[in-house]
């Protein structure tokens, strides 16, 4: 028998609202199926199941806000008859959740629900009764249903209640997101002994290769510079496993794969860090497609739980309209964050001659418990070396 629990969808998540069950008692589920939607401070996330079986019993009803690790449903072999869903909860009352402090750095950002940390149970959270239309509207307007008093039958939240809350600015998700980010980043800075390094990388060869590629391909198949930076970073990480790892229980735990969490800004403010999987194994066109899809999912609020739980390292790239350099805050329990500033044309010395060259400032924020400056410097130099031979990426 398996337990399907509220997953940790990032170091800054302490609770989530189960907004919809896509599967119901008696339904067959397969590993990787999306079976529920969870609303977090960072948006609505589709949650996958990590085992095969039959959804035997739903424990948490739609509308309930529960802490990370709470049992949501029971997955069985299908031998027993499905149990009925829990009885309807009483009408709207604000769910009781702890203040937005992130889970301990030692708590894994669970790769699977079964590995999710088990938070101490809270007093029973009351479900939120809302019409389907109100739920959809709340998702569209980024309004938190748990903060609204319903005016419909039995106290149910109706469309007009959501519109009024949106007009008041109450339950604003962007404010909650900022608080969640603040809590996680403050904890990271408080607990992780960061050190920072930076180097300027000559992008002449990479830019020339990219221009040639893009000139030969239709718009839909063109590449962004960020894709080359991601691939070079992933290949370099293979030589520096301490930077592609977690620091947990006072020890370094290198990751088996390179899944790069890509800092993605959201329209209207805030950010999420969905993971690009197995970056070192992908071709550049494959990476471009995945990055494009991830950004689209992040900005349309359709990320999946595995997008947010699998990152083994983080990369932030300022793109073409940012600052020269970025020095990031490590996303716990990871051990490194790599930053790329905005590429720019600068004077560069080649064979004794000053020539204009496209360059980028690459930075490393690393956990000093896991690595040191010497290794960090070699890591950045490896990225620089790989970018001089873009055809090999």
């Amino acid at each position, binding site marked *: 028998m398996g337990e399907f629990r509220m997953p940790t969808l990032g170091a800054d998540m302490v609770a989530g609202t189960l907004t919809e069950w896509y599967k119901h008692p008696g339904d067959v589920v397969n590993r990787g199926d999306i079976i529920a939607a969870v609303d977090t401070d960072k948006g609505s996330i589709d949650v996958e199941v990590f085992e095969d079986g039959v959804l035997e019993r739903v424990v948490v009803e739609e509308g309930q806000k529960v802490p990370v690790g709470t049992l949501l449903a029971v997955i069985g072999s299908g031998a027993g008859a499905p149990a009925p869903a829990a009885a309807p909860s009483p009408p709207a009352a604000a769910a009781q959740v702890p203040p937005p402090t992130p889970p301990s750095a030692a708590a894994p950002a669970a790769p699977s629900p079964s590995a999710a940390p088990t938070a101490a149970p809270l007093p029973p959270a009351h479900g939120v009764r809302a019409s389907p239309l109100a739920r959809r509207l709340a998702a569209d307007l980024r309004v938190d249903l748990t903060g609204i008093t319903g005016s419909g039958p039995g106290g149910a939240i109706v469309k007009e209640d959501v519109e009024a809350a949106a007009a008041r600015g109450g339950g604003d998700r962007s404010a909650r997101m900022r608080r969640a980010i603040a809590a996680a980043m403050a904890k990271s800075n408080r607990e992780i002994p960061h050190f920072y390094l930076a180097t300027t990388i000559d992008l002449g060869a990479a830019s020339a290769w990219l221009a040639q590629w893009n*000139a030969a391909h239709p*718009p839909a198949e*063109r590449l*962004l510079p960020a894709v080359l930076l991601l691939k070079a970073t992933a290949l370099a990480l293979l030589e520096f496993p301490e930077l592609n790892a977690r620091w947990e229980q006072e020890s370094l735990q290198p990751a088996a794969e390179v899944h790069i969490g890509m800092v993605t800004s959201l329209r209207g403010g805030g950010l999420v860090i969905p993971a690009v999987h197995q970056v070192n194994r992908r071709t550049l066109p494959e990476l471009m497609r995945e990055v*494009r899809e991830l*950004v689209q999912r992040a900005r349309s609020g359709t990320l999946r739980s595995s997008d947010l739980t699998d990152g083994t390292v983080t990369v932030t790239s300022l*793109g*073409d*309209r940012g600052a020269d350099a970025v020095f990031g805050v490590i996303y716990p329990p990871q051990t490194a964050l790599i930053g790329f500033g905005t590429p720019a044309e600068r004077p560069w010395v080649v064979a004794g001659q000053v020539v204009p060259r496209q360059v980028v400032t690459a930075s490393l924020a690393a956990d000093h418990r896991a690595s040191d400056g010497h290794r960090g410097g070699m890591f950045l130099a490896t990225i620089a070396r790989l970018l001089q031979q873009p055809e090999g990426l």
Partner: protein
Amino acid sequence: MTREEIRAAVLDAIVAVVPGTRQSDIKDETPIRDQLDMDSMDFINFVVELDERLAVAVPESDYGRLATVNGCIEYLARTLAGGPPPVGSGPAGS
């Protein structure tokens, strides 16, 4: 294709890339990326949308010509008419 039809296609492409944008809010003379906070991924998606709607594969070297709605109209009108693209460029687009 008339300039009005091209303008409509450009605005449709922008809205497809930045959902929720009202076409009436888009200013023709203000850089598109500035007014809508479009990043490099948004911009390349905009170029893809133009290609799909107008069958014009704007070369990367011409991205700067697409900085504003008016710039897009000017560039696309000449390209669709088979003439050379207009001289001059705006801010880099990628």
